[in-house]
């Protein structure tokens, strides 16, 4: 902003990202995961579903007896684990992002209504969230998945619909605080209509907490998907998911640990990366930091 000099300057967000170690790490991890999801057919060295009985349970390349052709080893059917992990990122990303969007939209709408208008509407919405809260999320998801056809769509729906209460509560409490702020009162005395107060004064000021919670929720959604797939209720073979891989590998944990451990590490890293990025985003979007670099 200050120097429009001759030399090229990185955009502000990139400069700020560069300075934050964890933010950068998160950004790199998430970028890799997104790239894997988008370009899986080009990145994966093998067909992830190619069964190769000759190369069953090969250890990773860095271990004794490992084959450099299979970087992270192979599983009990001779699938290349790396290729499967790259394809599995698709399922995780799609479910993580879509279910969070679904939960975020529903939850934000209800949270805004409850917080802004208060009264009976608030009581009703909050009692509904209480009711939702009393049902174990996984249990509900399991029942829903058994009733409907297992697949990506069902998982998004189930994880999204069980996740909205977090948003509703967060947004409601933020709106309650904001409503008492004098700039909202000023808008009321100006005569600004409710929908404009919500759009210009309330929503922009809940956005940063929304983002932080959302990134966290992407991580939990991915874990939820993995758990369901691990239990055999999520993604069904031949579709590939990290949860399914974990599940398949657990029988070999004692003898061929890498079959379950590789997807486990991938999952942990991805979740951690998303959370780092979320934390950095929160700091970045705080307007008090806008002048700083």
């Amino acid at each position, binding site marked *: 902003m200050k120097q429009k000099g001759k030399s090229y300057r990185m955009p502000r967000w990139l400069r700020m990202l560069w300075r934050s170690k964890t933010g950068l790490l998160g950004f790199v991890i998430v970028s890799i995961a997104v790239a894997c999801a988008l370009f899986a057919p080009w990145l994966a060295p093998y067909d992830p579903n190619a069964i190769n009985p000759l190369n069953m349970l090969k250890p990773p390349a860095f271990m004794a007896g490992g084959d450099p052709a299979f970087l992270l080893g192979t599983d009990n059917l001779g699938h290349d684990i790396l290729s499967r992990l790259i394809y599995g990122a698709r399922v995780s990303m799609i479910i993580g992002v879509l279910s969070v969007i679904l939960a975020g939209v529903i939850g934000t709408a209800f949270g805004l209504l409850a917080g802004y208008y208060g009264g009976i509407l608030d009581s009703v919405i909050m009692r509904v969230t209480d009711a939702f809260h009393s049902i174990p999320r996984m249990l509900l998801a399991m029942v829903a998945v058994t009733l409907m056809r297992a697949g990506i769509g069902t998982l998004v729906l189930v994880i999204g619909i069980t996740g909205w209460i977090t948003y509703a509560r967060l947004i409601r409490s933020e709106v309650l605080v904001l409503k008492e702020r004098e700039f909202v009162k000023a808008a009321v005395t*100006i*005569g600004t209509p409710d929908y404009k107060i919500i759009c210009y004064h309330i929503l922009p*000021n809940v956005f940063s907490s929304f983002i932080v919670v959302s990134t966290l929720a992407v991580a939990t959604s991915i874990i939820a998907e993995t758990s369901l797939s691990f239990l055999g209720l999520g993604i069904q073979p031949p579709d590939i998911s990290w949860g399914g891989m974990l599940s398949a590998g657990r029988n070999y944990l004692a003898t061929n640990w890498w079959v379950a451990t590789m997807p486990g590490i991938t999952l942990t890293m991805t979740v951690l990366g998303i959370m780092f990025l979320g934390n950095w985003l929160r700091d970045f979007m705080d307007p008090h930091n806008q002048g700083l670099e």
Partner: protein
Amino acid sequence: MAEEYLLEIRHLDKFFTVKGGGPWKKPEILRAVSDVSFCLKEGETLGIVGESGCGKSTLGNTIIRLLEPTSGEILFQGKDLAKMKKRELAKYRPDMQMIFQDPYSSLNPRMRVFDIIAEPLRTHHVLAGEDLRKRVLELMTVVGLDVSYASRYPHEFSGGQRQRIGIARALALRPKLIICDEPVSALDVSIQAQILNLLRQLQEKFHLTYIFIAHGLPSVRHISSKIAVMYLGKMVEMTSRDQLFAAPMHPYTLGLFEAIPIPDPSFRKPEEDREILQGDIPNALHPPSGCYFHPRCPYAREECRTREPVLEEKQPGHFVACHYPISIKESDKKA
């Protein structure tokens, strides 16, 4: 009586129900503003003074309908705002604006200064495009802000500058009445005078009427034409500024005068002659019997404990709610 008042408040009440502890306790009623009446002519400034918790801000918020009045009338140019529906009220919003106490909370941190000042104009579709831009920059100049700051965010400004932004926003729609809710109490002392002077200049320039809420007499002295003193939700004294400063009649007002610090302590009256207010403001949920002020009043007699005084015109233009107001002679002696 034939005189046109810009604002006339008649028996305005604002009660809050406070839920008791637990479901079996009856909710209690907090009388934040009770039976307040006053009139204000165009161009006048009414200063409202009282300790924190006396209901002065609630009164301001109720007049501008940020809070729903419990009962009473708010006649603005003869129209009763108190019972108006939201839709209808919107037409009168531009005529009445507010300047808030805390400049750190009164500006949306995610809006640029330009948009903050433009919001009232956009909301009421007064101006658009280049005209809007000109008007906003003009408003910034009027309140003493550099126009080059228009695209900055509020956090880049000091408290005094933020308050100027808030004033520009309040002025944008050319209101007739501005309610100033302790507009300088959050500012540095050195900045307070600047903002007060600005408000006075603007009053002359735009022929504004102010309701100026403050917790001490010194800050309303220079700006007010009339002063009302509130205690526990009621008005205890109201008169012209000069009359009030020359001869306060309510013991509470006198107490407020004694609380004003004197620049040179050697000019201070001897301790035994001063009527320093003792104790704290009582709990508004359970106000004292009779005159609310009697437990702290040095002149309290038996009657004060039992019978509640009403606001009466004890002298022409001088309203006091006290059974035994300080006589003119007595306050002369004190002065």
